[in-house]
């Protein structure tokens, strides 16, 4: 919203104060100012002058040669405006002057010298009108500085509308002037208005509020015999500086009032509207608003009607048919108050957000509807003294907000602020803001003014804000708390998560990425990844992003697909949430999971698979000092490879899976690359208790190593061999390691069995007895044979 400081000064005396500094204080105490404009500061030496003669330019149809009397001298001027005529008084920029930043110098225009410029309102920066030069009324003496005639000079600032959301009272200049009054300690002047009690005996306006739930108050008045149709220059300048466009006197006045008091008003042409009903319709219909657009009106939209015919959308916009025209002389003035939520919803439905609806949705003060009419009359009568009021000020006030009264004591303020603010300061601040304050000992009884009581100020803490913001947060003495210190333990899931990340990044050189919580059906489709049924977004603006993911790997695979040019070998991971369907109570089963994908064009899939398996074993081993078991399972996602999908578990607790990719997905990413992936449920992992490190004192006595080379059979896993050896190795078997794997026509594996005793030197005979007397025969029973 744009705020004119000239306008503010109508209501509060700011003479001698630094205006920019005041506006800065407004930012710190009230609402954020986004921009300050200094209008007129680059306009100098523009005076009221008179055109003495007009001659056509010999070489141009558009240009005229003028003799202009500036009050000091008569000068030549070449002018292109169509509306020049002899005797006309104009705004004339003298040679050496400046118009809205443009320096005026002697110029030669199409062969003739020109010593100045006749200015249009557009050139002066006071309106959008560039149809011709600005005409000045006859009563202004020649040579008068234009800036002393009109309010060209003004400081205007723009407030972020969002920061006014909770302040319905700040949607007009008068409310903002109240803030400046409180900030400066100056009194706020009352609004000058017409005393309408003298019209009390005139017939009332027929106002029928049928929807009393959504129309809170409706004030109306009829005025005849309007003869003026153009607004005064200064009013038009204010409207223009505040972002509005001058239309005609009556329309301008309603806009002016809205900007001044924050009360939207509407003027109906009384030829069309002479009484009003406020209601909603049962069936939808179309309605043409004054911007010329047809609107679909439904049963929830509040309408203003006249004799059953809709004439305006309540609180949003008037109808085209009943709008004020240039020849309107008789009007019905509306000043109403509606339910903010109803207006907001209608405005959203219609896609029509207007200056009026914006104000109503903030829940403006219903008390001011009649004041606005009285103020309107005052301004209208000043401009057009011949107007005739033909009705009483009629008013239907069906919904009052509750009065808000709050009681608090000084200790409450002290506790909340942490600083000392004096009683006087509290009283002065609240009084300046319009609160009615009674102070008795340490207790304050406060009555909240109507313009703050619609929703804004409801509890004691709101009063704290009023006191402190005017006091100024910059003036606060800042102090630390006296809260006792307590030890803080890091939560386990954080520790796990961070350790996992460190290990994956620092040791295994993986890259952490972030992906989205939903499946991207387009990207998944390109990789032959099914979007599995899951919880859905109801209102996603992207039709490809609807189903929430139930697994980390597919979103990581799409990332791999988009990173093929990054390198020939890399790995990525992410710890984030997936939704594993619904829980019994219908809520999402949200799980925190770690997903890992390795990609390589340099190494074969098998090697990559084992690299990933080892990463996981090491990570879990380090975090919990437990062994991970891997077991082949049937693939359960369409992109997993049917042969190598492996479930991982610790002590029977399933943690996730490790798999290679189904060829149909792998081939879509890269025909020549190996890709393996894994997922670990971090929430489940967190519940696995940590074992203590199992420390074994190294033996002081030499040990004995025995190597066995065993023929490999595809039906026998290493785990089978290992368990037989461990079961029969006896008390001295300490280590079992693989020293060689030979893949050939006859494949074999060489194992080294390490024996040692903590308290003696073992003899070769006793160990050979164990190996060849017990272990080897047991292996042979299972058809596991030594290589001869």
């Amino acid at each position, binding site marked *: 919203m744009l705020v004119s400081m000239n306008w503010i000064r109508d209501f509060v005396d700011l003479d001698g104060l630094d205006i920019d500094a005041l506006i800065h204080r407004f930012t*710190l105490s009230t609402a954020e100012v986004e921009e300050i404009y200094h209008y007129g500061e680059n306009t100098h030496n523009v005076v009221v002058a008179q055109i003495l003669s007009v001659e056509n330019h010999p070489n141009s149809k558009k240009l005229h040669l003028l003799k202009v009397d500036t009050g000091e001298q008569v000068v030549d001027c070449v002018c292109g405006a169509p509306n020049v005529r002899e005797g006309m008084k104009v705004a004339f920029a003298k040679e050496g002057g400046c118009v809205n930043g443009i320096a005026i110098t002697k110029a030669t225009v199409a062969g003739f010298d020109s010593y100045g410029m006749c200015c249009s309102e557009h050139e002066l920066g006071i309106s959008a009108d560039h149809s011709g030069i600005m005409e000045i009324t006859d009563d202004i003496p020649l040579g008068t500085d234009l800036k002393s005639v009109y309010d060209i000079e003004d400081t205007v600032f723009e407030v972020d509308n969002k920061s006014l959301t909770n*302040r319905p009272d700040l949607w007009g200049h008068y409310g903002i002037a109240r803030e400046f009054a409180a900030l400066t300690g100056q009194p706020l002047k009352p609004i000058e208005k017409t005393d309408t009690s003298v019209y009390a005996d005139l017939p009332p306006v027929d106002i029928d509020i049928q929807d009393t739930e959504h129309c809170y108050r409706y004030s109306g008045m009829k005025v005849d015999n309007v003869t003026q149709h153009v607004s005064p220059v200064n009013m038009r300048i204010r409207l223009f500086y505040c972002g509005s466009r001058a239309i005609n006197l009556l329309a301008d006045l309603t806009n002016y009032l809205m900007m001044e008091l924050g009360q939207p008003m509407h003027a109906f042409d009384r030829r069309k509207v002479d009484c009003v009903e406020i209601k909603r319709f049962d069936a939808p219909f179309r309605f043409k608003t004054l911007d010329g657009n047809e609107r679909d009106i439904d049963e929830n939209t509040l309408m203003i009607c006249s004799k059953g015919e809709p004439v305006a959308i309540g609180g949003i916009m008037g109808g085209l048919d009943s709008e004020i025209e240039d020849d309107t002389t008789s009007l019905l003035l509306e000043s109403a108050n509606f339910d903010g939520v109803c207006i907001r919803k209608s405005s959203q439905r219609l896609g029509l957000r207007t200056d009026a609806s914006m104000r109503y949705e903030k829940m403006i003060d219903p008390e001011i509807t009649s004041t606005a009419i009285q103020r309107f009359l005052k301004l209208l009568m000043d401009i057009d003294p011949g107007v005739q009021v033909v009705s009483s000020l009629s008013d239907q006030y069906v919904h009052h907000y509750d009065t808000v009264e709050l009681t608090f004591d000084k200790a409450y303020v002290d506790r909340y602020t*942490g600083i000392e603010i004096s009683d006087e300061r509290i009283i002065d601040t609240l009084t300046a803001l319009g609160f009615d304050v009674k102070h008795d000992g340490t207790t304050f009884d406060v009555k909240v003014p109507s313009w703050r009581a619609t929703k804004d100020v409801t509890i004691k*803490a709101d009063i704290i804000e009023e006191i402190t913001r005017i006091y100024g947060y910059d003036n606060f003495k800042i*102090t630390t708390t006296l*809260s006792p210190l307590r030890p*803080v333990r890091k939560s386990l899931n954080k520790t796990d998560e961070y350790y996992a990340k460190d290990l994956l990044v620092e040791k295994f050189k993986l*890259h*952490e990425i972030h*992906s989205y919580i939903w499946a991207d059906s387009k990207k998944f489709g390109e990789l032959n990844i099914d979007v599995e049924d899951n919880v859905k977004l109801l209102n996603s603006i992207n039709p490809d992003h609807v189903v929430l993911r139930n697994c980390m790997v597919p979103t990581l695979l799409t990332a791999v697909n988009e990173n093929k040019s990054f390198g020939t070998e890399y790995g990525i991971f992410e710890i984030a949430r997936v939704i594993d369907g619904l829980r019994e109570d219908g809520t999402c089963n949200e799980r925190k999971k770690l997903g890992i994908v390795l990609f390589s064009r340099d190494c074969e899939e098998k090697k990559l698979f084992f690299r990933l398996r080892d990463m996981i074993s090491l990570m879990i081993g380090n975090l919990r000092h437990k062994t991970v078991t891997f077991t082949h399972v049937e693939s359960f996602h369409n992109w997993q490879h049917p042969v190598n999908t492996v479930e991982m578990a610790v002590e029977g607790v399933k943690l996730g899976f490790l798999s290679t990719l189904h060829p149909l997905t792998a081939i879509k990413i890269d025909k020549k690359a190996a890709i393996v992936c894994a997922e670990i449920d971090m929430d489940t992992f967190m519940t696995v208790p940590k074992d203590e490190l199992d420390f074994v004192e190294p033996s002081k006595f030499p040990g004995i190593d025995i190597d066995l080379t065993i023929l490999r059979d595809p039906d026998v896993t290493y785990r089978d061999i290992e368990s037989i050896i461990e079961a029969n190795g006896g008390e001295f078997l300490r280590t079992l390691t693989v020293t060689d794997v030979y893949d050939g026509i006859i494949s074999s594996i060489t194992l080294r069995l390490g024996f040692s005793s903590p308290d003696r030197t073992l003899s070769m005979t006793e160990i050979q007895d164990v190996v060849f007397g017990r272990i080897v025969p047991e292996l042979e029973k299972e058809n596991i044979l030594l290589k001869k």
Partner: protein
Amino acid sequence: MEKKIAKIMEDFSEAARSASDSTSVEKLRVAFLGKKGEVAELMKDLKSAPSEQKKEFGQKINQLKKEVESRLADLTAAIEQKELQALIDSAECYDVTMPSAVETGSYHPITLIQREVEDIFAAMGFTIEDYDEIVDDYHCFEALNIPKHHPARDMQDTYYLDNGQLLKTHTSAAQNAIMRKYGAPLRAIFPGRCFRNEAIDACHENTFFQMEGIMIDKDISISNLIYFMKTMLSEVFQRDVQVRLRPGFFPFVEPGFELDISCQVCGGVGCPSCKNSGWLELCPCGMIHPNVLTAGGIDPEEYTGFAFGLGLTRLAMMKYGVKDIRTFNSGNLKALSQFESL
């Protein structure tokens, strides 16, 4: 005999001049001092020499031997020195400007900033909490004093789910659960991923990170809030940061503030980043609304507290100079792999 000695000495000198490495010096030694060398041969001649001259010749041969030995030693030393120098000179001077071949991994920038900020809070006695991304209407809105039809709900374009839940629009959604879990007094931070249903561009993301903090105790004041925010932000930015508070409206705090920090780009004199104001809007905060405390099971007459929300994604953009917010969720390793270490 004397002639022979002179001849040998002359021959030796001649040969020594051409000896250039340790092998030729060794040959020289064998040729003159070896068992069958010139000096040994002379000793044989000594037997046949007249006996009155034997003593004199013996002495002269000895002199010769010593002379040869001494010259050989000098020669050896010189050649060793020369060879050592040659060895040193022959070493390759390595090009230390060659690029590194060490493979590195990388952290997501959000992880980096989050850990940094968490460490600061942990040091100040704050519990670090993790909270769901999918929440219900009550936790995201009702419990935060945002009733149905409140315009604040329009300000946050919420993703609703078909089971009636929603993706949390702000980390504040965890406030109620955390207050219920710990009660007062309480100091906690809860970083998390938030979602807003809006179109994305260089400045807007539908998925981003925030970090919320609350501190509740008896007599927590606005003065404490300002102190705390200033201290915390100075730690985050590793310098004395100027802060200012402006009134700001958030339904879950009263009074509510927008906290600005002195622009970190221009130092507060004004630049395009801060729209020439010298200040950057960083973090909404305020005194926790009594209704929110009540909903969290904490008596607002006994306890007060403050809450603040820090945009971790925005902080990361400021700290690392990331211009396009979409970088964070792009998965683009050319960008993300640059964040190599903690």
